């Protein structure tokens, strides 16, 4: 099967997966205790108003009917309206997409090469001081919760040194310098755990490759260590790493919820978090579908990347 046909087949497979994601999300949000109308109106609301809003938003309909109505709207690319904000979910997501994509993208762009570099270095210095330091740093990065790290960075760099802004977001298209200053701390926070995970994976994958016979043979032939590391071992170690790299995208999404809250970044993570707290069904379902699409595309690209990395792989 050609790569082209494989890609089409995999893309079509996304549709039933998305239907599953929607169904699961729909069931789960409706299983959450509390009615969004009651949450919206708070304590001691007018019963008449509560009844009216429940009727108007269809919360009094049987669940199966609400499900079919929602699905029908979804098929027309209508994600519905945020109950709390009384605005289309699509508008809310589009407004917040920029900061989240920027934050996640830059974090990844920084985390990935750093992790690969440190991982390869650590493996090359296996069980030496450099390896120990890298492993310790990796463990520390993995063990440090985002919210703690974020707050500590704020206190250090914004409060003590007054060197960087503590919060907020500026679009790089408006003011690139201010944007960079605002993004430094959130990116470090988000990229730390990411770097640590990828670094440890790279290291273990590289250590495994470097222990194989072909590496010994290459060394016996007198190939430079640098060539063995980068041209031979690293390329072979990359295959399992690609899978992890694709899947790590979902962890970035998790992290963005916390980082956006701490650094007051008006992104999709915060939108989702607030939606979840308020049982804002439209927002939760909309974001879940969006993140599912993003994740599935990530997985698809990962699969397609295999062939590029290892030409022996065929899509039969």
């Amino acid at each position: 099967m050609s790569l082209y046909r494989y890609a089409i087949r995999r893309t079509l497979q996304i549709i039933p997966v998305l239907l599953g994601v929607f169904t699961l999300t729909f069931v789960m949000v409706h299983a959450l205790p509390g009615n969004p109308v009651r949450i919206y109106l708070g304590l001691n609301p007018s019963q008449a108003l509560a009844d009216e809003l429940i009727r108007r938003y269809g919360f009094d309909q049987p669940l199966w009917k609400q499900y079919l109505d929602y699905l029908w709207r979804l098929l027309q690319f209508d994600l519905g309206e945020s109950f709390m904000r009384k605005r289309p979910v699509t508008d809310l997501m589009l407004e917040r997409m920029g900061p989240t994509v920027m934050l996640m993208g830059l974090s990844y762009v920084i985390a990935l090469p750093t992790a690969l570099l440190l991982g390869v270095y650590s493996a090359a210095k296996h069980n030496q001081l450099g390896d120990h330091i890298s492993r310790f740093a990796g463990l520390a990065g993995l063990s440090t919760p985002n919210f703690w790290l974020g707050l500590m960075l704020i206190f250090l760099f914004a409060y003590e040194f007054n060197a960087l802004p503590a919060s907020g977001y500026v679009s790089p298209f408006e003011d690139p310098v201010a944007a960079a200053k605002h993004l430094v701390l959130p990116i470090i926070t988000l990229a730390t755990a990411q770097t640590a995970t990828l670094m440890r994976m790279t290291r273990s994958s590289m250590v495994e490759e470097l222990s194989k016979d072909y590496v010994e043979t290459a060394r016996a032939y007198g190939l430079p260590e640098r060539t063995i590391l980068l041209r031979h071992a690293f390329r072979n170690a990359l295959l399992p790493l690609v899978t992890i790299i694709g899947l790590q995208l979902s962890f970035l999404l998790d992290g963005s919820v916390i980082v956006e809250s701490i650094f007051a970044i008006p992104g999709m993570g915060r939108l989702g978090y607030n939606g979840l707290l308020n049982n804002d069904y439209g927002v939760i379902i909309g974001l879940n579908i969006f993140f599912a699409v993003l994740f599935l595309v990530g997985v698809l690209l990962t699969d397609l990347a295999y062939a590029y990395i290892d030409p022996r792989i065929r899509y039969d």
Partner: protein
Amino acid sequence: MTDERTKFDRRRFLATSGLLGGSVLAGCTGGDGGQETTTSGGSTTSEESMGGTETTEQQQQNVQGGGTFIGTTTEDATTLDPRMNELAWVNGFLHYIFDTLYLPSPDGKKFVPHLAKEQPKQQDETTFVIPLKEGVTFHNGDEFTAEDVAYSINWMLDPANKSPNKANLDFVDSVEASGKYEATFNLKYPFALFQLVLSGMNAGIVPKSVAEERGQKQFGQNPVGSGPFAFDKQVSSSHIDLTRNADYFLKQPNLEKIRMRVIPKPQVQFVELASGGVHQATVPKNLLGKAQNEQSIEMKRISHFDYNGLVFNSMRKPFDNVKVREAMQYLVDYDEMLEATKGQLGKRSYGFMPQGVNESWEFPWQEWKEKYYPAKDHQKAKQLLKEAGYGGGMDKTLKISSLASSKFKNLAIILQKELKKVGIQSNVREVTIGQWLTELDQGKFDVNIYGWSGGQDPDGFYYYMFRDLRNDEGGMNDNVVGNATAAYLYQSSDSDQLQQADETIRQARRTNDRAERKQMYVDAAETWQSLYPQIPVFSEQAATAWSKDVKDYEPSAFAQQPLCNEWSNAYVEK
């Protein structure tokens, strides 16, 4: 860490924070309110300085453009239309865009005509004529007239518009434009809180022509009012920008702009303030010491007119027995509970009201304190439990529900520890806001931690928390108990005494004579307190801090739009 759930400040029942707009609470009326303390560079004074010392003329010379004031809030605004807004902090903030007919004075002791020209003229028991100021314009240049007043109020009263403010205005039958500059309010019944409601943003005046032309949703995103600042733009979850309304009818605002930033974490708000990123922030409890050492900021504790306490479910065993409920009073040292929960940022409550209300209404709270709020005494608690038939302990584990908020959770944990000492097992269950409301609605808990913000009138507490919802027009739905906290008592041990108390608090809001009202609330308070349906613990205070670069700015529990109102006109010193 302070409360992670400040986002729940949004509704009246948990209103706190965001004191940029002065009073963010549901309403304020006469009285001296809570003690307010100003701290500057480590020294503390209890004196309240209102309005600064410079004259307006001197200020204008110093202003040089006025600058941009950057305030903070923890939560985004979902609409900027006062007719549809439910969020407490937004109500405070909207006073910069919209005006009301009256405003409370900075000390909260009187209502000052604002868009109104003078005090309401009473025609008969339920008809009030309010003359309006002439020459006031909206931001789009349209003249403010009685048509706008009638439209704004009648729009919210129209059930078709589903305004959440309708319940607050339900005492109004209709409003007529009886002249170009004269509005006539026809009430359904005499209402003691008439001016209080008209001074709140729940009765903000919108321009009829613009609101009709844009439609509610558009108007909520692009509002036009008559306030000292005009709406510029909103970046959702990030900030709202306002610009100076040079034609403001009171005076030209000194400040060029106001920016309200949404910063969810109070710790980060404080860092931004200390590092000069913003001009105002709410300081969390654990950073008070640091804030006091900051030379560049001033800080003030502002009392909230809220109430936080323990609610017992009297529809279930063991709390269906009044002796068990009374025993809970002896079980815990509630002063210690306050210390462990809010520390310096709280005040003990007595009589299901904040202390500020007790003091301003001169309720006999000292007497109540001695009679209903005795000191911790485990022996007495055990004796009461024994009399109630629980001398040998309980065969069930009590369920204590608390919102995932540190202030609420700490109350629950302290109670749990004390219960254990007398042999009663309990589980503390952290719940989401949805679970919490469902539990209260359906009575599925043993003890719940309750927070409510009712303003400075006793009605805000007694009517909302203690009336029998079954006696409301339309009654209650079958599957709902009702989360007014007295619902459990009514449905478990209804009595003539309880029904009398219900009638009293309903009558009190229709009685204009303050002395008569006071007696009614005292009578009702005696009834409720003797039944121990809940234990009041504390009302909160917010530590509001602001940069010393901001001049002529003094937030208080009462002052609406303190950046520019009749008494002040703030500016940022260059």
